């Protein structure tokens, strides 16, 4: 009993902290995500995407995954991938990038809340994703 009460309190405090991060974040995202800025962002990122072997068609699923995460963005990722008929090579490269670097805002914030170093996590994930995808894009040449 001496242990149980503090444990319960601690767990509720942790949940409250996480909820205070998540609810505003998700709400803000829903409000902002239809802004035309995001639709036009494709032009800006295109040269960068070419470096890792991806074309514009992959931009929406890629950025949905990077910011929202794979489970949350599943509907958009699957639909766009099928609509645009992304070739196997691009699907693989996109999958590799997203495996290393997805849901960056939420995942990193919740670890910052419990004492982690956000820039370190983001830096290593992003750097590794660009390196691995860029490497594989050169190994697997486009047909």
């Amino acid at each position, binding site marked *: 009993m001496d*242990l*149980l009460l*503090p*444990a*319960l309190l*601690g*767990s*509720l405090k*942790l*949940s409250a902290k*996480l*909820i205070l991060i*998540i*609810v*505003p*974040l*998700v709400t*803000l995202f*829903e*409000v902002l995500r*239809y802004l035309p800025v995001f*639709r036009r962002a494709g032009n800006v990122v295109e040269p960068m995407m070419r470096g890792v072997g991806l074309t514009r068609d992959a931009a*929406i*699923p890629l950025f949905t995954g990077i910011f*929202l*995460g*794979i*489970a*949350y*963005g*599943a*509907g*958009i*990722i*699957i639909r*766009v991938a*099928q609509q645009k008929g*992304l070739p196997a090579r691009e*699907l*693989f490269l996109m*999958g*590799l990038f997203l*495996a*290393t670097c997805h*849901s*960056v805002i939420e*995942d*990193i914030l*919740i*670890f910052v809340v*419990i*004492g*982690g*170093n956000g*820039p*370190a*996590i983001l830096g*290593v*994930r992003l750097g*590794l994703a660009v390196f691995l995808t860029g490497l594989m894009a050169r190994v697997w040449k486009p047909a």
Partner: protein
Amino acid sequence: MTEPGANTAAEEPIPDIPTRIRTGLSAGLETSLKIIKVSVPLYVAVTLLKGTPFLDLLGEVFAPVMGIFGLPGEAAFAFVAAFLLNLYAAIAVIVPLHLTPFQVTQCGLMMGVAHNLVVEGGVLSTTGARGGVLTLCRIVIACAAGLLLRGLWGLWETAASWAAAPPGPW
């Protein structure tokens, strides 16, 4: 998190702002319930198990593997929670273990790459990519990222101590 935006195609009509706020709040609320359901029991369980022979034994068994990444053996329990469930479950395990800032960062990095493997593996395979291969890739990448961070963090602390600045975050 689950899919309030999941059924929205890029071309669909744009909902007005109050609708968007409602969508966001209800998605947030749904996630909150999920967080409480998973973190309260896990947090309490780990707190009660801490200091018992069970957790000590588990720690000893996994100490050699976890040690590679600069983590204590008990962190293995957090990895199981992250792989099978999600990051909230992992965090509920990590907090009662009282890890150092480096160790929390290391967990955040490695688990950020590899978590929720069952569900997300399914999603990835429906895009046409091979789910099993990518899941394996994620575990390998997580290990690579862990080694990389351990090396970089060591370098950073060395550099910081040379500059006679307090070692710490970037």
